[in-house]
């Protein structure tokens, strides 16, 4: 079966203004709206389009997280994923542990393509895809803005600092989605109902042979330094004079 594995991370919704806990022990996530990491949504959309073009037969969404991450997997199923896997783990998952778990899942599922978001908008690490590709000893194409699948190879345009880079990679491979890859579809109500019947299996990381072993310690969380309150200017002339006084124009 020509299968694509897509990573789905449960994160604080991108519209929420997060706050640091008063005792600096973390970020407040309790009672805060959660959603699919936006870059993962783009990765899923790309996988669905490849299936719709007949280039893949099955799209499997996988999440590593607490039982509540089932909600995000249900959304992924409503968007169109064929089935979902939750690797159940409530604690901290470092990118290397996520990559070790995804490697085990990839070995089970034998996808020809693993599509992940380039980074999660909570810890902003931008590491998991590269680490998975390294452990798997397979090609990686990060920051993808276009993806073309041919027989056994993928041609990927990457948004790099120098411009647009095109790579050709042998499959299987890991591709991480950047913002421009596509615009994810909206979920329709009938699809949400249909998604309830799609298979969602739960896996245990230790049983997979990849129990998390976090090795970095977050010792302190702080809000960023606040910006100083600015001034109102009455017209364009005053604006330009103010900017010129500061050497900004």
């Amino acid at each position, binding site marked *: 079966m020509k299968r694509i594995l897509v990573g789905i991370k449960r994160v604080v919704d991108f519209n929420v203004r997060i706050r640091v806990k008063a005792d600096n022990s973390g970020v407040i996530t309790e009672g805060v709206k959660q959603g699919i990491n936006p870059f993962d949504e783009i990765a899923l959309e790309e996988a669905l389009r490849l299936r719709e073009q007949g280039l893949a037969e099955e799209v499997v969404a996988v999440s590593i997280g607490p039982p509540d991450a089932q909600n995000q997997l249900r959304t992924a199923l409503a968007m169109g994923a064929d089935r979902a896997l939750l690797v159940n783990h409530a604690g901290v998952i470092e990118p290397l542990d996520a990559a070790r778990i995804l490697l085990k899942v990839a070995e089970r599922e034998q996808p020809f393509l693993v599509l992940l978001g380039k980074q999660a908008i909570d810890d902003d690490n931008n590491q998991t895809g590269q680490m998975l590709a390294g452990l798997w000893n397979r090609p990686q194409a990060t920051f993808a803005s276009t993806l073309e699948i041919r027989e056994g190879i993928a041609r990927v345009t990457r948004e790099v600092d120098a*411009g647009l880079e095109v790579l050709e990679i042998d499959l299987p491979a890991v591709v991480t989605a950047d913002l421009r890859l596509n615009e994810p579809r909206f979920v329709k109500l009938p699809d949400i109902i249909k998604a309830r019947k799609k298979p969602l299996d739960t896996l245990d990381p230790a049983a997979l042979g990849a129990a998390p072993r976090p090795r970095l310690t977050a010792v302190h969380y702080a809000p960023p330094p606040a910006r100083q309150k600015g001034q109102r200017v009455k017209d364009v002339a005053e604006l330009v004079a103010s900017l010129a006084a500061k050497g900004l124009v």
Partner: protein
Amino acid sequence: MNRILVIAEHDGRRLAEATARAVACAQAIGGEITVAVLGAEVAEPARAAASLAGVAHVLTFAAPANAHALAAVQAPQLAAVAVSFSHVLAPSTTFGKDLLPRLAALLDVPALSDVMAVETATRFRRPIYAGNAIVTIEAGELRPILATVRLASFEAVATGAAAAAIEAVAVPPELPAHTRFISVTSQDSGRPDLATARRVVSGGRALGSAEKFQLVHELAAVLGAAVGASRAAVDAGYAPNDLQVGQTGKIIAPQLYVALGISGAIQHMTGIKDARAIVAINKDPDAPIFEAADYGLVADLFEAVPQLIAELRSRGR
């Protein structure tokens, strides 16, 4: 003593300034600094790396396979030498972000992304949630410590006269061939790159149409600025996706940021909070953007911006 390896970014001719910023982070950690230069042509960038202040050694990995920076090809070469270092750093650019995590996986160690401050040789600060929180990470006994260095947080080290010793490393003949470089095209719009521009002019939904969004380009041209857009403007089709500034777009830190008709949604503000100065022009006096703006002008942008362009042009003469 710490032995710190800094992975150089270069294009075969010039050493990228990002490298000198990563060396500054290595200096903040403290120890003996070595720079690794991988490429098909390494002579020029190696010479430049050897003259950076604080650099003791330069290792070159010269091979045709290194002509383009492919993480899958370069990570195994670096893994062979990385174990003898206490720290391995790369600039937090698309180059470093692509390469360093793959190297970390080969070494079976975690990595820190976007280090913005060094507290001790094992304790670092980095931004999370698009910079809305800063976390301090302790790496403890872990070695080597791998990190990418946030460029906006470190000034480039100076170029000195004293040149470090340059040593060639034998590149293994068997390197992965599963990843092939095809081409790179620079998006040369004549405008500076949005991600690194010193000045940025962005437009929001209030521009009203793709045609009227030209006003943003006109002001940007006068200021020599890059063009950005709010998510609302992108969603409305006034500007392409790659111009989006904000949490799910580009996170930028220009000297001057000019927001035209942008209300200032949270996800936009997180993308610009590191800007040195923020100018907001908006008709709505209650727009949240005015909370963060250093200079706020309540005005119809279709009147104010042409005036601003004329004013700037007359000053330029």
